[in-house]
């Protein structure tokens, strides 16, 4: 493969006297500027935010939508969930990255020449695959404020065009946990994050603990924050560095994880020479362990489906080991499988804790890997990395499946034991499920001093160790449950929704970790205005057209969802059942000017008919990254003023005005359909 970066690198590299970092928490798409070493200065693929307005990467959604929707679903609901998934990454306060919805675009045509992300619905996704993401780069290196990078010029997320035939899901419903977590995961790829093994949203499903309520783990947050750091962020966190070696050589792509009872796991992979540096680690004390990547499973093309780093000639640099015994750092060369004697490695703000080295022994294979845990809600809904309520009188069963737990006869591997790391929680009564169900179970109990949040399990065999971060989560409340959704009006005649149920905590602060409830309407949050005398939540729903029906889901910030108890959520119809979309006058826009001229900052005047624009909730996009929207001013429910800067002459783009769940999309000068946000 031709590598133009080889030549360009020679020109650019002399100017790069100081590399910003040589490692991170998490793992990125990596290039090394050498074919012979030293391999300790990785260059990463990322968006060059300094070339974008307000550090915003625009994203666009194919205007066709999925060809086939699951029953009861809508394209508007899918847009709402996609926007919510993007907001997950934008809302990471320690990252300067923003993802901005730029409207609908026509798949098959470029959504602009400037960097951006496109979401398409494809018929080319084969069975066995739910979604995937592609980076597009030229191979040219760029030199930005953070040093040398490989700029991503476009990322594309492909979702199935038929959402009723999604591999073994069948119907892939937009409100569901898997749909949302998949979106967040794919957005992570689109930004430059690879798979990890620390149970965050960027884990493969085999170990993911991500949920709709708490999609990001500490590793995900560290990853995006180190890739796109907010101003001053790196001065608020520390770093860990060291080597993983097997005499006499360093191990390539070994995973190093920093774990504590109070801070979830953060990890990185080693460079080809065995060196590593994990940035973005919050100050505190950590047990640090090194473990091998698991073998490729179930048709993965590489371990954990990692895209290997490449040398300057484009040659992939893979693993140089089969497996090795997982070990915790002990402060010296030995290492241990006993976490109780592991060294508690300190991390200080703005400082590097170096010399966290591991000397490991080769193994033919890893004893245990790819473990995922499940529990059951009171209504017997299975939940991955389940919540365990602290202080219950009896234990809660947690099931686990993975490689190396059972033999072919469903007998637990001799010597296997399971324990909880560092908390006042216990795991006992290890047992297999009856054949042929390939699961084990343990009883987990957490007392009131366990502390809320993710907890980690140790799977010890006679000669190896497996650590599963965030195997379960300790909570102090039951999951939220919605029992009724009632439309109403407030004293001013504004639409509100009364939400009856249990487990709601609007602004709750009485627990150690405050729990807050969010009410979602097709992924978009309502505004909780208070509670009634009988405990119902009073919620202002996001705007949508009359007759639109949205699913209603409650999420608590402790990671629990009303979907845990009610997998089929209740719905809310704007205007009541009698308000059908067909009975509602369609909105339309009059846009002036209709043609935007390159380079000219322009004020676009948008006059709506049958619209209800809302300050702070109305978003305008032109379906192309070549038109940057600088500001949207809502002058009235039917009048917008939009400040734009076109990068190229745009004569045929459309305009998209989104208010809550209401979507108006029309070509400039050529009015077409849609919804009336009220």
């Amino acid at each position, binding site marked *: 493969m031709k590598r133009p970066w080889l030549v360009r690198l020679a020109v650019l590299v002399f100017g790069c006297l100081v590399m910003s970092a040589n490692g991170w928490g998490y793992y990125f*798409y990596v290039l090394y500027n050498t074919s012979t070493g030293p391999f300790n200065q990785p260059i990463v693929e990322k968006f060059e935010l300094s070339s974008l307005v307000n550090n915003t990467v625009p994203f666009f959604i194919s205007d066709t939508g999925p060809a086939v929707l699951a029953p009861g679903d809508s394209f508007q609901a899918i847009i709402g969930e996609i926007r919510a998934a993007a907001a997950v990454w934008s809302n990471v306060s320690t990252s300067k990255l923003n993802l901005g919805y730029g409207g609908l675009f026509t*798949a*098959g045509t470029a959504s602009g020449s400037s960097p951006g992300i496109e979401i398409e619905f494809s*018929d*080319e996704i*084969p*069975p*066995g*695959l*739910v*979604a*995937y*993401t*592609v*980076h*597009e780069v*030229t*191979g040219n290196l760029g030199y930005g404020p953070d040093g040398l990078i490989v700029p991503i010029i476009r990322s*594309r997320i*492909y979702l199935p065009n038929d959402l009723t035939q999604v*591999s*073994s899901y069948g119907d892939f419903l937009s409100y569901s946990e*898997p749909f949302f977590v*998949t979106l967040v*995961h*794919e957005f992570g*790829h689109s930004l430059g994050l*690879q*798979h990890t093994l620390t149970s965050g949203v960027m884990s*493969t*499903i085999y170990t993911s603990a991500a949920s709709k309520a708490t999609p990001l783990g500490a590793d995900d947050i560290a990853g995006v924050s180190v890739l796109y750091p907010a101003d001053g962020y790196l001065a608020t966190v520390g770093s860990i560095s060291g080597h993983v070696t097997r005499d006499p050589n360093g191990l390539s792509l070994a995973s190093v994880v920093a774990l504590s009872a109070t801070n979830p796991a953060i990890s990185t992979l080693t460079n080809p020479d065995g060196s590593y540096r994990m940035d973005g680690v919050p100050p505190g004390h950590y047990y640090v362990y090194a473990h091998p990547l698991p*073998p*490729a*499973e*179930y*048709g*993965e*093309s*590489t*371990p954990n*489906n*990692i895209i*290997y780093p490449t040398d300057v000639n484009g040659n*992939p640099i*893979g693993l*140089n*080991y*089969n497996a090795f015994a997982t070990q915790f750092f002990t402060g010296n060369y030995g290492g241990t499988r006993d976490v109780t004697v592991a060294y508690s490695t300190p991390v200080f703000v703005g400082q590097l804790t170096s010399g966290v080295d591991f000397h490991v022994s*080769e193994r*033919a*294979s890893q004893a245990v890997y790819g473990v995922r845990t*499940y529990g*059951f809600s009171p209504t*017997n809904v299975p939940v991955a990395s389940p919540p365990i309520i602290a202080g219950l009188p009896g234990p809660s*069963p947690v*099931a686990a*499946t993975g490689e190396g737990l059972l033999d072919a006869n469903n007998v637990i591997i001799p010597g296997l034991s399971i324990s909880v790391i560092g908390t006042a929680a216990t795991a006992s009564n290890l047992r297999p499920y*009856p054949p042929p*169900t390939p*699961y084990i179970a343990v009883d987990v109990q957490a007392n009131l001093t366990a502390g809320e949040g993710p907890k980690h399990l140790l799977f010890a065999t006679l000669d190896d160790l497996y650590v599963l971060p965030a195997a379960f989560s300790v909570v102090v409340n039951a999951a939220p449950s919605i029992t009724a959704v009632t439309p109403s009006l407030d004293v001013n005649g504004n639409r509100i929704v009364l939400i009856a149920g249990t487990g709601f905590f609007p602004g709750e602060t009485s627990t150690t970790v405050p729990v807050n409830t969010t009410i979602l309407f097709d992924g978009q949050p309502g505004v909780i205005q208070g509670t009634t005398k009988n405990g119902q939540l009073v919620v202002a729903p996001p705007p949508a057209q009359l007759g639109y029906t949205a699913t209603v889901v409650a999420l608590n910030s402790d990671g629990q969802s009303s979907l845990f108890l009610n997998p089929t959520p209740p719905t809310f119809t704007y205007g009541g059942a009698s308000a059908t979309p067909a009975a509602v006058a369609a909105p339309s826009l009059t846009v002036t000017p209709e043609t935007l001229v390159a380079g000219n900052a322009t004020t676009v005047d948008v006059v709506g008919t049958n619209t209800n624009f809302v300050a702070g909730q109305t978003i305008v996009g032109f379906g192309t990254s070549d038109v940057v929207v600088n500001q949207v001013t809502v002058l009235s429910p039917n009048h917008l003023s939009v400040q734009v800067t076109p990068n190229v002459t745009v004569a045929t783009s459309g305009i998209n005005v989104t208010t809550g769940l209401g979507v108006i999309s029309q070509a400039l000068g050529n009015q077409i359909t849609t919804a009336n946000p009220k």
Partner: protein
Amino acid sequence: MRRLFITGLLVTLGTLPGSTLRQLSLDDMIRQSTMIVHGTVQPANIMYHGSMIFSHYTVQPTEIYKSPVAGQSASQSSSGPIDFGVPGGSLNGIIQRVAGAPILTVGQDYVLFLWTSKSGLTQVIGLSQGLLSVITTAGAAPMVVRPAAAQGPLAATGLPVTTNDISMSLSALKTEISNVLSGQSTQ
């Protein structure tokens, strides 16, 4: 009773998805593929399909175990090269990479579970799930295994980084394909 119910749920959970990949059983692959071919691969061309770059290969069949052609029987031999695409590649200065895309070795003997989309693009089913290597050892029956990691530098032991979550004789695979397609599978 609750335990039985939980067991039932867990059986269902055994196929819980990846955010990207969903594990297909061998029988799933047999049923959902449009063609199952035994042969060696050669690189062909690289082209766009919509906004995606696909690197195309051809497989020269030594046997076809499942054919999209109505009436054509399994194990029918002899056919012209069959084209299929692998997502990702480099074309006109643009590089696209897809995690999990099959990594093919030219000249390697494979059993390929292929799937053709509505548009006519043929791919390996489940990204790399439908890619099985045929291993021939002197004096032993040919085996099919699902290869694992693409080979990086060998370990100090000289052993490749590999795991085989499907490993069976080629004849057993052919029998299983035949049984599934005739509705006789016991899996």
